[in-house]
């Protein structure tokens, strides 16, 4: 146990001092904050009203989880770079020579990725609370916490992105090849593959499952709800208009996603155990 603590300490020394790590984290946080700051200022073109409602309680959690998911790919790329650097500098080899086991190499990287997923969660939570307080007309306990668990799904989603990135980095070793194939896998490789399968199967593909964890909020319904008080009509929604595809529930998607994380882990472990470093 003491040994694993030391391994984690060395992992954080090299990660936190890597200039690329700081750059990507700052970029990730800045892009997210920029988007969620600008978005509420836009007027909806049809409803002629602002999108502030999307960042008020309780809708802010679904909105921020969805927006946050756009930038998960950056965390996935960061995971690739952190693993790819070890290959590039041949430091996996050096660490094994110094007494780190192959399993410890893998666990240490996974702890870094869990920490990054926690960071993404904290970013969404803090921003959600701040924006929710600013944009909500009234604040209630249930208004704040009812939909908050949606944010924790983003934690699993970002971890899944990074686990998949790590798997690619172990397969291809090179940062450039891993990043390109990783992005291509999200689009268009998996979507093309899905086209060959029926709907009942294609919704279980990894990218589809991971993306479904943070679905596009039905912003039309959210915004038009506030109009009911004005004209008494039933709220319109993207779902009722058939613009949002039927997909698995968030709970089922989460469970399947956790299953994929386990698959990514075992596939990576298989490579790490057999590789000549």
């Amino acid at each position, binding site marked *: 146990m*003491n*040994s694993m603590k*030391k*391994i984690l*300490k*060395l992992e954080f*020394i*090299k990660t936190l*001092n*890597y*200039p690329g790590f700081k750059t990507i984290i700052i970029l990730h946080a800045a892009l997210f904050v920029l988007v969620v700051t600008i978005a509420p200022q836009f007027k909806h073109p049809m409803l002629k009203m602002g999108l502030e409602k999307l960042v008020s309680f309780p809708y802010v959690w679904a909105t921020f989880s969805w927006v946050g998911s756009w930038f998960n790919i950056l965390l996935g790329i960061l995971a690739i770079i952190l693993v790819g*650097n070890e290959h590039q*500098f*041949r*430091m996996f*080899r*050096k*660490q*094994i*020579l*110094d*007494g*780190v*086991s192959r399993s*410890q190499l893998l666990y240490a990287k996974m702890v870094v990725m869990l920490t990054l997923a926690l960071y993404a969660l904290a970013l969404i939570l803090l921003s959600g609370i701040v924006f929710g307080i600013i944009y909500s007309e009234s604040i209630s306990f249930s208004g704040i916490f009812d939909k908050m668990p949606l944010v924790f799904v983003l934690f699993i989603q970002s971890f899944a992105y990074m686990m998949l990135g790590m798997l690619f980095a172990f397969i291809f070793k090179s940062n450039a090849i891993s990043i390109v194939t990783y992005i291509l896998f999200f689009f268009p490789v998996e979507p093309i593959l899905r086209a060959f399968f029926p709907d009942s199967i294609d919704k279980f593909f990894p990218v589809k499952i991971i993306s479904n964890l943070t679905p596009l909020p039905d912003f039309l319904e959210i915004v038009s709800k506030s109009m009911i008080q004005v004209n008494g009509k039933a709220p319109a929604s993207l779902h009722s208009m058939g613009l949002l595809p039927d997909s698995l529930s968030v709970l089922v998607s989460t469970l399947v996603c956790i299953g994929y994380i386990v698959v990514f882990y075992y596939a990576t472990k298989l490579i790490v155990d*057999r590789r*000549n*470093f």
Partner: protein
Amino acid sequence: METILNVNSISKVFGSITAVDRLSFSVHRGDVVGVLGPNGSGKTTTLSIILSVINASSGDFSWFNGLKGEVANRRIGSLLEVPYFYPYLNLERNLMITALARGAGENDIPRVLDEVGLLKRSKSAFYTLSLGMKQRLAIASTLIGDPEVLVLDEPTNGLDPEGIAEVRDIIKNQALKGKTIIMASHILDEVEKVCPNVIILKKGKCIASGKVAELLSEKQVVLIESDDIEILTIQLGQNSNCKLLGRENGKLLVELKDNYSPSALNNWLFSCGISVNRLEPRHRTLESQFLELVGKPENI
């Protein structure tokens, strides 16, 4: 004497290439062993297997009576090929990573940096070092935690003559402290100056092993010229003190056993009724004997 490393018939196959072929040897506590062989003879692959960075295709090995992998590696200071460090970290942090991996104290870092003359550069980033300094840092990292065994692969790579002498002194000092040292090199001189014992590899196989002094001694060689070289050749084949090495421009190259002098050979030939036109003592270097062993003939 306690066996530190036991290697039992290890092989490593890369596609159609057999890099290591059923290699067996053992190293005892306090031994200083050189692993000698030309490029591509399997030295680095052998060391990589016993240090668990690559997996053997077959065979087995164990350190310290049954240990292998990370548990054994924490007790071994090792340097394989070129020095590997994080280029963006300074020397102190790079060595901190080694210390943490090995479970050693971080307070050992100034000592080892001082030992290799890099203490003043402890805050410099690794990428700012010269090749020689990088090699010295790699030596320093092997000394972290004062391990009982050192495994060094071409430790003087990239060093200038002064640096080579310094590294050699460091290794010799470690040997004097009673450490077990395994050092691979393709340079005979390097091994001969540091290691009393040697394992000679060729195409992944052990072709000779034992004391350097016994395997590669500077034996007397003579060049003999005679009117009838064929009779001379037949006659020399009957002398157990002589070993025919070959011909050079119509003359015979002959190795003499210890304590058998060129004049004794001349007397013996005369007693056999053979007169020689020329009998010239030649110096046969360790290098030429080594090259002969690994199959590269060299003009003497």
